[in-house]
């Protein structure tokens, strides 16, 4: 709690913006009477009394699509973020704690995964899947986004492992998983939270990028899908600013606020992590 107070003002502003957008994504679809795919008016109606954010090329309400899109994007982001963080922490911990051959193999795999761009792997996966549900997309993104976390967690664990309290636990006969859960992971919590924020950020971006390419989730709106149609139907050159600006502004607001949250957490938590590194 003390650490929370030490956070700079920009953390609170960014967190509030993110939570506000998330709340719109949760409450909006429940409050909206129409679905994101319903044709409600003429094509490209500007924002006004009937439609707060206007309509798109088919006459679907941009506002209704927006709240559904936020929900889809956040759902995929959360699923992929959790999957990526858990996988990364698991693999990193295993490699860092075991060392030796397991370390060599797991880190070799991690390095290869880092070198091969994730977006290309996702693209190949996506064109292979005939229908892409939001859950499948979330799992796919999570399955390729763990290497960064794994690499960082591994180096942290490898240095934490050398500490005396870990030796004492080992000598007193604690099991491996108990040492990891009780002696090692608590030191990593601040780092894991930051890694999760970055994973969430990366996953929302990955979803938007895939959707922009036309490989988005089938049958639902997402922020990237909205941008895809906005570009495909030339709304930028047509000057229908409400169609393309809405997803652009919200993607940017979500990612910028997440990055601000992460960088403010970093300024508070990093000194301790640096001490951990120096002890190696």
């Amino acid at each position, binding site marked *: 709690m003390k650490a929370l107070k030490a956070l700079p003002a*920009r953390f609170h502003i960014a967190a509030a913006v993110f939570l506000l957008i998330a709340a719109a994504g949760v409450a909006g679809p429940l409050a909206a009477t129409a679905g994101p795919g319903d044709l409600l008016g003429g094509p490209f109606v500007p924002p006004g009394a009937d439609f707060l954010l206007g309509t798109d090329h088919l006459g679907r309400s941009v506002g209704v699509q927006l709240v559904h899109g936020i929900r889809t994007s956040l759902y995929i982001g959360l699923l992929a973020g959790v999957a990526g963080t858990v996988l990364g922490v698991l693999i990193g911990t295993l490699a860092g704690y075991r060392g030796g051959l397991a370390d060599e193999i797991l880190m*070799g795999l991690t*390095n*290869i995964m*880092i*070198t*091969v*761009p*994730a*977006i*290309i*792997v996702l*693209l*190949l*996966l996506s*064109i*292979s*899947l*005939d229908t892409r549900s939001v859950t499948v997309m979330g799992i796919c993104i999570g399955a390729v986004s763990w290497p960064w976390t794994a690499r960082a967690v591994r180096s942290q664990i490898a240095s934490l492992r050398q500490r005396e309290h870990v030796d004492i636990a080992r000598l007193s006969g604690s099991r491996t998983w108990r040492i990891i859960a009780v002696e090692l992971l608590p030191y990593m919590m601040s780092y894991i939270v930051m890694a999760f924020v970055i994973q969430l*950020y990366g996953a929302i*971006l990955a979803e*938007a*990028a895939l959707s*922009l*390419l*036309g*490989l988005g989730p089938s049958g639902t709106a997402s922020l990237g899908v909205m*941008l895809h149609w906005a*570009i*495909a139907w030339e709304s*930028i*050159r047509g*000057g229908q*600013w409400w169609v*393309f*600006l809405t997803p*652009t502004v919200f*993607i*940017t607001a979500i*990612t*910028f606020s*997440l*990055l*601000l949250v992460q*960088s403010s957490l970093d300024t508070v938590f990093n000194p301790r992590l640096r001490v951990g590194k120096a002890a190696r």
Partner: protein
Amino acid sequence: MALLRHILSKLGWYAAAFAAALALNFFLPRLLPGNPVDTLIGQALRGHASSETKQRVYETYVAEFGLDQGLWSQFLTYIGKTLQGDFGTSFSRYPAEVATMIGDALPWTIALQLPAVLLGWIIGNLVGAVAAYRRGGFDRSVYLSSLFLTAAPYYCLAVLLLYGLAVALPLFPTGGGWSFGNSPEWSAMFAVDAVSHWFLPFLSLLLVFIGGQAIGMRSMAVYEVDADYVRFAESFGLPDRKIVGYIFRNGMLPQITGLALAIGTLVGGALLTEIVFSYPGIGTLLYDAILNKDYPVIQAVTLLVLIVVLVANFLVDVLYGLIDPRIRAAERGER
């Protein structure tokens, strides 16, 4: 000698990564449930299922992958053809060769990305080093604006620039590689036209790269600023420009690794930027291929991007070994 060993061990890693990439590119579409080739053909034909098209698609696949053989010999066929630069023919622009289509698009992408990456790297690192040294208001504004530039996905900035500087304020053309009615040729008039179309996508990439590099350099240089050599130089009354130069050189090494690790994201993001501007490069080619389910083109583009990213990574690694004496020392075991 040690440098050679450093390069060779790196080469081994990249060979492994390349093999993995090649295998992914080949096997991924085939390992998923269902008969993948039927799915591919079914998807490719959705909407326009004339028997002539069906026959053409089928023959393309049979010829390209040797479908009557086992999976492993298909893989070998694929590798053999790829090594000869034969990527088959396009579905959507039959009978265009995929290799020719890529050859036409590639110069545009290179002209866009290479200057943006290099200039963005230099400017971004300088801005970051200066920000870390000056601190205070300048630092804060550089940090926040850089964070904004990197946080916003490439294509979002591109959308804003395109609308702001080409539609709302019609200073630049609204996209494409050249004006309607013009065609690519070696003439001064076409060059002027092409540069005016090139500028906005270039600017949008440049800004993003500057932002990313400035943040990395700043966080690196913040530690350098407190180093003894900076105090020492200051006590001698050296000009700021010189001290920032020292900081720049010390913070640069990790930044080169950073560049290597970021290349994949850079290239991927830059391809998406092309789509916004309908710039006639690899990104737009990929976008059109996905819309038309043109699988030979998609697979050739993904392979190309993978190779470029791996080669760029390798070159940066070699460069790193050349300029950082510590690597050579560490290889010899004299830390």
